[in-house]
């Protein structure tokens, strides 16, 4: 970014520090747990003084650093199908090439694979594949049932809690050599809830016009710490407090989102976006929106690690049950009708002009049904939608010209629909010339 926010620098330090800690984990006598972002049990893992590694984060970081194409090719060379998830292949390829992490430092082997099978079938196969690669590494399997009925059923919660008690915690105790400390977990959950409050405030600031944030491209940075290794830590609380202060300042100043191209000066379109971003051309993708004065005011991808904006908070009063509810409530664990309901609410609550689906080839959990979702949302809201296709980290599936053309055409269509009365809002509050 041309204007680095304090919070962004803070996050960069946090991430670099975490990768440093991983690189020296063996020397420091630290054990390492690999796990997934949706439904991650960061507080529980941290309460045993274990270090989390999130292969999806490694993959997306590799995508942003233009390393993923090479890793995917390596995995395909070893027999992994061109048809399957590129996060998996990026991870396997990175492993085959020495398991050097995105910051250039080696990643330690896992001491435990914590298979939080939440909202994505591929997770199950991913860690079975890693188990095959690493040999004797134990796996703790946490099967999180699907919210097919659009709500958490009591027996689903019981099932997850029982698995925490009988499968996950015993294995964490075993590899850490420490007994489960419920009070320590409660304390971390308290910290989680504080950070979650500030995250929600930040994301909901986009309800203001003009929005001080971009809730998709900027949003993926905002969710970084809380969806990954930092939820439940004092660093996360500090980060989200700093982020909130920044956004408050921008609100007071009437300033808009900060983008890699500089601060946005106009807000012409307010959009809701469904689906993950493309990581290999992330900046180019964002610029396409920036160039059209389009701001994303709400997104579903920023809910894959929890729907805090719908009221969920980690609750220290019921530590295992709250972890279960967290796992069950992640966005990709919602039924399709519930996802449609959520997007409809976002369009209304954030007064969006349009919504766009970025359908990624890698992720059937997100992608299957999106064409029907598009129609349903259009029918319910009267707001036209757009549909583009790309991938997570496979550079072969990002066609910049096609995507740019599609976005521009869509926004022109919105112009025609809205008519001349719709003027862009200058970021200082008035209508732009």
């Amino acid at each position, binding site marked *: 970014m041309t204007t680095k926010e304090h919070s962004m620098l803070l996050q960069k330090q946090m991430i670099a520090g975490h990768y440093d800690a991983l690189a020296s984990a063996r020397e420091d006598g630290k054990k390492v747990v690999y796990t997934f972002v949706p439904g991650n049990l960061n507080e529980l893992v941290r309460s045993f003084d274990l270090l989390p590694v999130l292969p999806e984060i490694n993959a997306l970081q590799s995508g942003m650093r233009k390393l993923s194409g090479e890793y995917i090719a390596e995995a395909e060379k070893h027999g992994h199908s061109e048809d399957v998830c590129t996060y998996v292949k990026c991870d396997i390829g990175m492993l085959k090439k020495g398991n050097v992490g995105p910051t250039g430092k080696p990643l330690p082997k896992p001491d435990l694979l914590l298979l939080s099978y939440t909202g994505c*079938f591929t997770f199950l196969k991913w860690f079975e594949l890693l188990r095959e690669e690493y040999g004797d590494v134990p796996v703790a399997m946490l099967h999180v049932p699907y919210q097919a009925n659009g709500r958490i059923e009591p027996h689903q919660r019981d099932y997850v809690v029982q698995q925490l008690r009988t499968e996950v915690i015993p294995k964490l105790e075993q590899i850490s050599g420490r007994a489960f400390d419920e009070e320590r977990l409660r304390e971390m959950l308290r910290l989680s809830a504080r950070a979650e409050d500030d995250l929600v405030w930040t994301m909901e600031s986009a309800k203001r016009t003009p929005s001080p944030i971009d809730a998709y491209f900027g949003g993926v940075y905002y969710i970084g710490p809380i969806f990954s290794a930092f939820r439940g830590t004092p660093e996360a609380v500090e980060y989200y407090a700093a982020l909130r202060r920044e956004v408050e300042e921008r609100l007071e100043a009437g300033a808009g989102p900060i983008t890699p191209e500089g601060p946005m000066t106009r807000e012409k379109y307010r959009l809701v976006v469904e689906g993950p971003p493309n990581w290999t051309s992330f900046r180019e993708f964002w610029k396409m929106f920036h160039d059209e004065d389009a701001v994303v005011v709400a997104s579903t991808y920023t809910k894959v690690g929890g729907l805090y904006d719908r009221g969920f908070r980690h609750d220290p009063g019921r530590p295992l049950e709250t972890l279960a509810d967290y796992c069950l409530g992640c966005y990709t664990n919602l039924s399709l009708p519930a996802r449609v309901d959520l997007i409809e609410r976002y369009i209304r609550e954030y007064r969006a002009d349009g919504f766009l689906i970025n359908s990624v080839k890698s992720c059937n959990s997100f*992608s299957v049904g999106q064409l029907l979702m598009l129609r349903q949302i259009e029918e319910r809201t009267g707001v036209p939608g757009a549909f583009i296709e790309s991938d997570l980290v496979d550079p072969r599936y990002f066609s910049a010209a096609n995507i740019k053309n599609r976005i521009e055409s869509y926004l022109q269509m919105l112009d025609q629909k809205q008519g001349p009365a719709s003027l862009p809002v200058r970021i200082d509050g008035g209508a732009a010339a």
Partner: protein
Amino acid sequence: MTLNELLALARSLSEDIDLVAVARWKERVPGRKAIGHMPTYVPRELIHAAGMLPVGIVGGGDRLEIIRGDAYFQSYICRIPRSTIELALSHRLDALDGLLFPSICDVIRNLSGMWSMLFPDRYVHYVDVPQNFDAAVGGMFWRRELEQLRSDFERIAGVTITDDALRTSIAVYNENRAAMRDLYRARSERPWIYPMSESWHLLRAGNVLPPEEHTKLVRDYLALAPGQADRRDQDRSRVVLVGMFCEQPPHGLVLTLERAGCYVVDDDLLIGLRWLQDDVATGGDPLDQLVDAYLHHSAMSASRYEPDGNRARSLIASVDRNAADGVVFCAPSFCDPALLDQPMLVAGLDRKGIPHTEFKYSEDTGQFAVIREQAGTFSDSIRLWSGAAGS
């Protein structure tokens, strides 16, 4: 009935994408209901015990033109959901009073939500099988799911499913599974008598027939097939076919493999019908028995977590048990479970020195020349080199 007549019947049933047989079954007794299910495991006994007909839905195969179904799916998604939507939109599934979606993968999972949005008046249920196999944990969860299904089926059928009725249905399905086990055993022992191109139809007939009738069909076939004088052993390689547990290959693909010199001695075709590997106990609490059978006697499949860390074990056991010469990976394009599983299975086979080859299909694949060439080369290489390697 002659063998040819029996096979003609089996073929008509296996190709019955209009569910004519189901509609006729319903017409015979007014008020009858039928519950469909997508591939892999659902507890068919519960549907049967409610007096309803369980109906396996396996997409449209190569006999259905997709007109509207493609509009619902991106190009990189497998074919079975689009053809299943097509079947429904073209009213070919109207005989069904509900549809179950087992937890195979994210495609079928999300299809359950699409179904509830497209057909809001129809019964839809996502069958979330446990991936934890501890009786007190996964077993308890599965029992609650079964209780929910029991309650749903009672409501749809307007009956009470008594424990005795459920025990009777368990016994009926035990016989059905035993017949299918016998079919596979016979095919493995004498594949020239019981070729896969015939058992393909026989198994698929089980999607639309009541289990009692299906059991009889399989038993009759087992009795009739040896009477064909022209069925003689040929110099072919014995292969296990893997990857077809959900979207089905076209029948032409199976014929192609046979013509390319392969005896298919085991496969995972319609594994859901044969999911429980042993008889389910008919004493005690029948729901508990179904739970126990699922936890401890399930088939290994790509959709099921393998807690012991050896994905290839059951495949290697099949190769050994059936004296197979090699494995053919035959998976649908874009099938996450099969294609993500494959590297682990390949690694296991390589460690054992078991030959293998692989290709992909979609249910409407119409060109088999490349597959024939590949399978023929594989079969030839096994016959030519396996002996040499062992000598």
